[in-house]
């Protein structure tokens, strides 16, 4: 009898182990499917890229039209401007702030930084570029990463030939209390060797947010566990009464 029990137990354990191994193998197999698909996609992509390059290199060699090519594949002289004055001549572009010069807010609040960019010389067409804001912590004397502060990092201004001001606007969330200075910068497209055009600065004072009971969270946070403890206590008492524990 003991021997039979022993054999049964052994059979059970073997079966359990087999099932466990099968489950682990299945899970591993499922996990390898994405890897195989990824490898397949990568191979396809590599093959396609090689085909593109093989097609493009003869075009480059023959000096054919390469305007549709990625910038790195264009012949180098086309990327450089013809004269230095063309790159540095940016005095006709002006950045102005239309928001108040001092902003006071509470952490968590949303504010708007507004400004406009003007091209004062109609003879020079606006070549386009990127306008962005810069935020500096005045107390810590460090620039602030805008990741949490603003979803709109930079605004692309397309090439336009007008002298009217183009409005710029950023929605900024005041994340941390402190004193900050904000300014708008503009990098003209293609002018890699000159400094960005900067606006005047805005002083931003952010005071801390005091949260004691926002949205009436306190009654819920303390109330729900208290109610549950009370209910279970009553249930336990009724049960105790029935079974004679509290008699």
């Amino acid at each position, binding site marked *: 009898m003991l021997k039979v029990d022993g054999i049964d137990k052994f059979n059970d354990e073997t079966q359990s182990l087999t099932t466990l191994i099968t489950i682990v193998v299945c899970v591993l197999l499922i996990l390898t499917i994405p890897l195989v698909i990824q490898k397949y996609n990568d191979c396809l992509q590599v093959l396609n890229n090689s085909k593109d390059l093989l097609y493009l290199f003869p075009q480059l060699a023959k000096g054919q039209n390469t305007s549709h090519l990625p910038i790195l594949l264009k012949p180098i002289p086309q990327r450089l401007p013809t004269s230095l004055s063309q790159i540095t001549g940016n005095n006709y572009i002006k950045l102005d702030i239309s928001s108040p010069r001092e902003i006071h807010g509470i*952490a*968590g609040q949303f504010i708007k930084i507004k400004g406009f960019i003007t091209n004062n010389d109609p003879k020079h067409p606006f070549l386009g570029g990127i306008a962005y804001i810069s935020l500096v912590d005045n107390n810590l004397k460090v620039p602030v990463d805008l990741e949490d502060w603003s979803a709109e990092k930079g605004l692309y201004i397309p090439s336009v030939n007008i002298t009217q001001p183009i409005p710029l606007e950023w929605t900024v969330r005041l994340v941390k209390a402190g004193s900050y200075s904000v300014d708008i910068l503009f990098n003209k497209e293609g002018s890699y060797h000159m400094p960005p055009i900067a606006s005047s600065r805005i002083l931003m004072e952010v005071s801390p947010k005091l949260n004691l009971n926002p949205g009436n969270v306190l009654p819920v946070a303390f109330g729900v566990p208290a109610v549950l403890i009370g209910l279970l206590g009553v249930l336990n008492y009724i*049960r105790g009464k029935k079974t004679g524990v509290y008699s």
Partner: protein
Amino acid sequence: MLELYRHELFGSFYSWRGAAWIIGASLIFSLVSYLLLTDKELSLLDQGEMLFNLAEVIVALGIIMSAANASSTISSEIESGTFESLLLVPISHKQIALQKLYSIITIWIFLYIVSIPYLIVVASGTTLALAAIVYTGVYGTLLITGISLISIAISAKLKSSKNSIMTILMIVLILLAPSIFFASSLKKTNFGTILESINPMSHAVNSLDSVLVDTEQSIFQQIDHIWPIVAFTLICLLIFLVYTRRFEIKGSE
């Protein structure tokens, strides 16, 4: 008819020890929602993101509790020697497994009801409360049903609580891995995208994100996330039906 279900459920509510889980869960919800609303940095999150985080905690807690509960439901009876007497009750083997499943789903429903005030308070001032309650309920119920079904099947097959709990926790961790352990850059790779596309938990998390953060609340906008979760639950049901057709215990052969 549902004697076993009642017995299982009373075990989870009728004593301090049995009901400690619900107080523990409510304390976790209290802590999470209080921190989300009052912490200096967390309170700066968008309200939709706060709700999304709370909904994630509710679903994840429900899954872990249900998995732990269901994975020992048959094996613990076998280990303690009470399963033979349970089989003497004039109900089918499938009915035994189903009634145990109902009790686990009922426990999730209690947990979900307890979480509703927290969802409402975190959503106060927005129009997201109803969407948060509905989608958390739908995804939680589907995933918890699926996980419980497969847990009961594994528990019946392995006949060892230790092994079945370990196996289920491993499965749960794998399901939760893309949402918890993967950085956003890894999620964007082909591997991450494909893994997320076959993972029901990722679909639930991504859908909650889409509903609560991006406010895409229509069911038609979420259908791409809903059907993989339904498919997962159906696959789990199939495995459950196969493995609970007839229970085998020691010496029955």
